[in-house]
């Protein structure tokens, strides 16, 4: 049961992370291969602030804000780049952030990582903290879902899709495409920061090796598998991928082979991604062609 709680918490964190990427990749068509950087910035900022005595709610707000600001810093120079070049720039950005975590030892303790990240007292620690932590994570995922649905089921969301379909047309119709894309990246980064924050306070130990390309591929897979440009797709994708990742832990592999098999995990995800792209590019939940704006 406790193990199930754990998997649910991780799935919900990844659902927030995947939804934030979906805003950029699914709705706006921005192939951000460095999304893990904002997850990492959220995690490190909240961890460092709360370890240095800042109250946790303030640390959380600070971390989300900084992730959003970092998104703007990435967006402003890179949005001049088109398509593939934008993807490469984001990939490099994530590597830069990873190197900052690794090498700014005075701040981040480098490869040693940050242990004993505090949690709010009413959640506590240990096994008894799992149900309340699950509730908090569920609430955060629900808020993310509602806010992002509101943002995308709107004229703004439609302008994102116009940019995704044809950026020249968007400009010819008077849309300020750089501004619209920057807002999408800032919003996406802030929600990725939120996912990172929850993760840091859940795991209570973070190190630079948690924020690498492998994690970006995992979240990319959640979005693509689930269905990019949809609301439920990334959530479904996150649950399927995390449950799958936990399930393969139980495959009985003789211990002498573990060191050969473990690296295969990444290959398996890459393989699924390729198969999905070829056989079902729309994902498990295909995007509806009919756009609806919620008036609620």
């Amino acid at each position, binding site marked *: 049961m406790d193990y199930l709680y754990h998997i649910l918490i991780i799935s919900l964190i990844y659902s927030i992370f995947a939804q934030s990427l979906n805003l950029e990749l699914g709705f706006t068509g921005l192939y951000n291969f460095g999304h893990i950087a904002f997850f990492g910035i959220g995690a490190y900022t909240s961890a460092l602030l709360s370890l240095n005595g800042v109250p946790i709610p303030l640390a959380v707000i600070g971390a989300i804000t900084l992730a959003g600001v970092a998104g703007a810093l990435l967006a402003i120079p890179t949005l001049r780049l088109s398509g593939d070049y934008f993807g490469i720039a984001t990939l490099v950005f994530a590597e830069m952030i990873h190197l900052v975590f690794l090498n700014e030892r005075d701040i981040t303790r480098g490869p040693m990582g940050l242990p004993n990240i505090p949690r709010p007292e009413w959640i506590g620690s240990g096994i008894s903290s799992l149900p309340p932590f699950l509730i908090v994570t569920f609430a955060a995922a629900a808020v993310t879902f509602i806010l992002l649905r*509101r*943002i995308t089921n*709107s*004229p*703004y969301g*439609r*302008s994102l*899709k*116009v940019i995704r*379909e*044809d950026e*020249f*047309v*968007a*400009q*010819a*119709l*008077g*849309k*300020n*495409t750089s501004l*619209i894309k920057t*807002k999408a990246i800032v*919003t996406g980064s802030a929600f990725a920061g939120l996912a990172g924050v929850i993760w840091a306070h859940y795991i209570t130990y973070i190190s630079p090796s948690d924020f690498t390309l492998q994690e970006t591929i995992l979240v990319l897979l959640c979005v693509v598998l689930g269905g990019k440009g949809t609301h439920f797709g990334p959530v479904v994708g996150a649950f399927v991928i995390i449950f799958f990742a936990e399930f393969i832990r139980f495959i009985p592999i003789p211990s002498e082979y573990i060191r050969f098999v473990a690296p295969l995990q990444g290959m398996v995800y890459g393989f699924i991604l390729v198969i999905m792209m070829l056989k079902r590019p729309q994902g498990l939940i295909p*995007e509806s*062609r*009919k*756009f609806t*704006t919620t*008036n609620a």
Partner: protein
Amino acid sequence: MLKIENVSKSFGALTAVNDVSFRLGDTGISGLIGPNGSGKTTLFHLITGFYKLDTGNIHFLGQRINGLPPHIISRKGIVRTFQQTRVLPFLSSLDNLIAAAPDQLGENLLPLFFQPSKVALQETRNSEKAESVLETLGLLKLKDSPAGDLSYGQQKLLEIGRVLMAEPKLIILDEPTAGINPTLIRHLVTILKSLRDQSIKIFLIEHNMPLVAELCEKIFVMDSGSLIFSGTPNEVQNNSRVIEAYLGRTADAANT
């Protein structure tokens, strides 16, 4: 209305537009013709801000517009279509049009959360307007179809509809009738004439000469990047330089 002064644009050694100057006054529909590669589309890109010009100035309604980004020029009232149709294939026909409505409050994030009723009201109005435009175009029954599923001609019409939604003062059309069947062409001609009667100015590139002669009050002719002639359809048809640009020199001229 539109004033083009000494505009030039080169790509490397190739001068695509060479010192072109002209004005579009109160003419309802003006045409731009010339052989392939004569710089017509480049000139349209320059007017709409998609290319930056090397020299010269472009004024629209008394304001200088060269150097402004395309979306600002569009908001000032010059709205264009593209030579290759560019509908938004995964959005419905209706959404293709609503997307073009100007000044949408709901395209900003804060009003979405703080003025939702205003946003919803505007959305309803834009949607009604889009439906009426679709009706004019004869595409209303396809409003929920993805634009990518429409026929080529219907996509061309949808593009015109999109331009109308943007509330333009001057419409710039790059080969609006290329590749569509004669029935749709007549439909398009009716639409363009009704726009002219609503005092929306139209400037178009077109290779269909009988159509140009029928629609345009004034025609500008380009060849090798330069403006070689301008006048009424009759004057253009009888001008030797224009005939030469299209058909080459006459046999005895070429032999001597």
